[in-house]
């Protein structure tokens, strides 16, 4: 039973990884690529690590996998947000068909950001 759940989670996680990497290749500009790749690959890797917990149970491998899930889910969105902010501040333009730029509208009023 545990192996069935683990195999299912593994297949779903690797599907998310592949979809995220295809998005990284196919989407038009940096911000679209960032949101596709980061969200899909973070969730996919977290599901692969959860399948490790179901395969091996609560021994040394399973507890370290749970800790690694926590690290991945905390650090990957932070890194992606830092990259998006750096890209916007270093002047990378949005895609031509983008309809709004809220960060630019908000940061026009104040001087120090």
């Amino acid at each position, binding site marked *: 039973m545990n192996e069935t759940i683990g195999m299912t989670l593994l297949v779903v996680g690797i599907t998310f990884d592949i979809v995220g990497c295809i998005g990284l290749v196919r989407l038009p500009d940096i911000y679209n*690529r960032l949101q596709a790749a980061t969200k899909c690959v973070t969730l996919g890797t977290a599901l*692969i*690590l959860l399948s490790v917990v179901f*395969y091996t149970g609560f021994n040394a491998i399973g507890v370290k996998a749970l800790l690694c899930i926590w690290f991945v889910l905390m650090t990957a969105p932070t890194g992606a947000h830092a990259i998006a902010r750096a890209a916007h501040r270093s002047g990378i333009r949005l895609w031509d068909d983008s309809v709004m730029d809220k960060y630019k509208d908000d940061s026009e009023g104040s001087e120090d950001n």
Partner: protein
Amino acid sequence: MSIFIGLLILCLFLCLYRVGKGPTAPDRTVAIDIVGTLVVGFCAIYSIITKKDLYMNIGLSWALLSFIGTLALAKYLEGRGFDE
């Protein structure tokens, strides 16, 4: 299990395509960040295959070091010092 390793290697090659092609520097930084997350998945699958916790230790340290590297690259792209 080996087919999952093969599919992850396919993902790595898609990321390497973006590292080579990407027109701007943040594109390459995003792709390198994604490679770091995929390597954690590699370590997880190897720990299922070999039943050793050595690979999960590698995955834990890889996740943290990849995060620190991404933050340093983002600060460098932003054009500011590291202490702001």
